[in-house]
């Protein structure tokens, strides 16, 4: 049986075809990037927020700063070099982000549920998410849960703004913002500023109505709505045998 983690990883990996650099956190994004490296993006390099470039880990890393990412890596950069030169300098093709809330323009909230000054839930905050959003050529979001609490009409707080909000604030954005949102139901997509996220693909058996019910804004459907090809034998074998043989993240 194919798990939800496997499906999300495989679908995300396909979207990385031909990309060169990806900024990814540990978990589904690194699984997707590692699989893409073996399939559709042979030159893909994962850059980690900790400063590691070209890692060759002996074991599957548990954090973006795991010691096994450093030993044998091609380069380890300081924070000013990583955030200033690599990320803000425009060297990242695709940044992966997660969030507690996303809106139709791909703006993200990872700061608070409720009011910032007296929050119901205090979340971790930006970390480098704001920088990944502002500086990557495009951003992919992987959200396990697709429900109206996460896909909201209005964010409680905008931590990481997409290019539309940046423009409204008088700043020309460097990248396209969120272009792909990969969920348990399907894929939402937009090509850049001025566009809403639309439903462009569904997993087999999922209906448009289901996706709309699970989305907190009136979700539009793209003209070329497709059904997602299930993970192939080859993709699953690589993922299970080469990428995460101990099923640390494929749980």
């Amino acid at each position, binding site marked *: 049986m194919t798990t939800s983690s496997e499906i999300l990883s495989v679908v995300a990996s396909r979207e990385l075809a031909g990309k060169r650099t990806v900024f990814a*956190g*540990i*978990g589904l994004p690194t699984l997707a990037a590692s699989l893409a490296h073996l399939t559709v993006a042979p030159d893909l390099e994962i850059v980690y927020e*900790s*400063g*590691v470039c070209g890692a060759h880990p002996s074991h599957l890393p*548990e*954090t*973006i*700063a*795991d*010691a096994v990412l*450093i*030993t*044998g890596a091609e380069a*380890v950069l*300081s*924070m*000013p070099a990583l*955030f*200033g030169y690599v*990320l*803000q300098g425009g060297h990242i093709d695709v940044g992966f982000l997660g969030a507690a809330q996303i809106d139709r323009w791909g*703006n993200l909230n990872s*700061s608070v549920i409720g009011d*910032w*000054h*007296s*929050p*119901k*839930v*205090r*979340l*971790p*905050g*930006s*970390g*480098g*998410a*704001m*920088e990944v959003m*502002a*500086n990557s050529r495009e951003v992919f979001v992987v959200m396990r849960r697709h429900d109206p609490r996460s896909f909201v009409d209005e964010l409680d*707080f*905008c*931590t*990481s*703004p*997409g290019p*539309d*909000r*940046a*423009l*409204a*604030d*008088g*700043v*020309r*954005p*460097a990248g396209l913002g969120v272009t792909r949102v990969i969920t348990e139901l399907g894929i939402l997509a937009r090509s850049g500023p001025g566009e809403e996220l639309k439903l462009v693909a569904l997993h087999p058996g999922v209906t448009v109505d289901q996706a709309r019910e699970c989305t907190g804004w009136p979700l539009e459907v793209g003209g070329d709505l497709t059904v997602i090809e299930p993970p192939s034998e080859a993709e699953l074998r690589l993922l299970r045998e080469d990428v995460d043989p101990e099923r640390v993240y494929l749980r």
Partner: protein
Amino acid sequence: MPRPGPDKTMSLRDAVAAFVHDGDTVALEGFTHLIPTAAGHEIIRQGRRDLTVVRMTADIVVDQMLAGGCVRKLVSSFVGNSSAGSLGELRRRIEHADPEPLEFEEYSHYGLICRYLAGAQRLPFYPLRSYAGSDLPGVNPNIRKVASPYGDEQIYVVPPVNPDVTIIHAQRADRAGNTQIWGLTGIQAEAVFAADKAIVVVEEIVADEVVRSDPNRTVVPAHAVDAVVEVPRGAHPSFAQGYYDRDNAFYRAWSGISRDKEKLAAWMAEWVHGTADHAEYVAKLGEEFWAGLAVGEALSEPVNYGRRL
């Protein structure tokens, strides 16, 4: 001509007593790697109050300092227990002002990095391509905008941070304070240069010759350092590349410990207030425990600095 630098070695107790005062702004840096935990615990033992703590990733050591009653204000860009869960005391302070409110000045990672960069360079502000359209400037009036004098562009800026004292942990230093780090070097150099005083805690103090055999490895030069303190395993539960691995089990356990006020108080009583110093904390964990975090050898290949013939 040989020039032995001044000896700045001290005990951690003396260094904290000398350089960390009630009401100070204290930066503790180390991004996942080399977190100055032992120093945080010593600050708690000495009962410092009303500190402003600056730390990019406010994680377990910050939650412990909050629980120790040391902290009035937090300046940070990430408040969480890595990817392993929540910080109980921090969430109680922010969500419920329990037992008292916590002033929180929030940034993104690069925003706080740029504050250190401005501080280290004595700049009145530092520009960065973040914050446009974010709600953060609305809750943090320190994040402002400047118009570029080279066109119609606008850009956000942050002000310098100049801590009263910065504390970092490192693999090794000489007695004068030349500090060498390998693996992740993070924002340690900038945090030290931005500060008025700097304490460097190290796994080992080494002979001058060791440092001088590889001057490019020196991340912080001696003239920026005020105290050098040897505290082996002082970064636990984080790791020191080449010395010991990360205690992932403790990270996972922290959510459960800190969620419950009584459990947390008991943990603090046993492990911080109940130990005289970090050596006792290390001994209490036991050699079997440390064997589980031991690492093998992966030596760097030497490079030739050359010698005039």
